[in-house]
């Protein structure tokens, strides 16, 4: 069994076009994400990206590193800390915390380009079933 990667990273622009596309794809048209007028009157004052869209970057990191093992034995635990206001370049990162008994555990986070932490938590995967 190979050593799990120490660090995984990706950066992706989340703009309103991506948010709108995600709303259609994920069947989540909550107006806080897609309705400019509604969102302007919300506590955020503007449209925000779906939390699950931001989290998708973490899932992408893990599937890129571990393939279908991520779908068979992955686990995620996160809390959202701040909304992602499009357009924003989101940096997703996973740092290896431990690797034992075939399970790799990562501290995961997503940050906006100004350093705001959007979400943080852990991800783990059993590498015994890795492709």
């Amino acid at each position, binding site marked *: 069994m190979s050593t799990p990667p120490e660090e995984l990273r990706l950066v992706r622009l989340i703009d309103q076009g991506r948010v709108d596309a995600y709303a259609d794809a994920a069947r989540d048209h*909550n107006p806080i994400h897609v309705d400019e007028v509604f969102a302007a009157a*919300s506590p955020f004052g503007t449209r925000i990206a779906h*939390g699950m869209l931001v989290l998708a970057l973490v899932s992408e990191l893990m599937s890129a590193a571990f393939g279908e093992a*991520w779908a*068979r034995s992955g686990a995620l635990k996160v*809390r959202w800390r701040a909304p992602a206001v499009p357009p924003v370049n989101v940096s997703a990162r996973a740092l290896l915390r431990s690797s034992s008994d075939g399970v790799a555990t990562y501290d995961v986070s997503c940050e906006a380009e100004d350093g705001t932490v959007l979400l943080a938590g852990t991800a783990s995967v059993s590498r015994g079933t890795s492709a």
Partner: protein
Amino acid sequence: MSIDFHALRRGDRLPPIAFTVTLEDVRAYLAATGEAAGTWSAHVPPLALGAYILAGLMEVMPLPPGALHAGQEFEFLDTVAQGEPLEAELTVVQQSERQGSNIVVFASELKAGERVVLRGRTTVMAPVATSEAG
């Protein structure tokens, strides 16, 4: 009939959510998130399953004003083939009020036939509904 978020209490079970995820759904999801299709030519990206469960939840329970998806846990237990019939069951496992917010935690279990393919816990917070003074 829609479910009132603020009326939910621990132990409440929501109506089952049945859905399938087609090849077209997967393509749209990957195009939206920006993930390459490589790994998911035959299977459904596991986080997409979670997204569809949440979408189903919001269909039966519109989110109240100011609601936030505050936390999420997932265990991905098996791959799901595109087009496979799925059914999710959600139960309220925690309900509390803190600092003016109603906090509800939903436990979810997604099955493909008899196989449990995903378990999750979803935390949603919303400002406590207040009655207007007369």
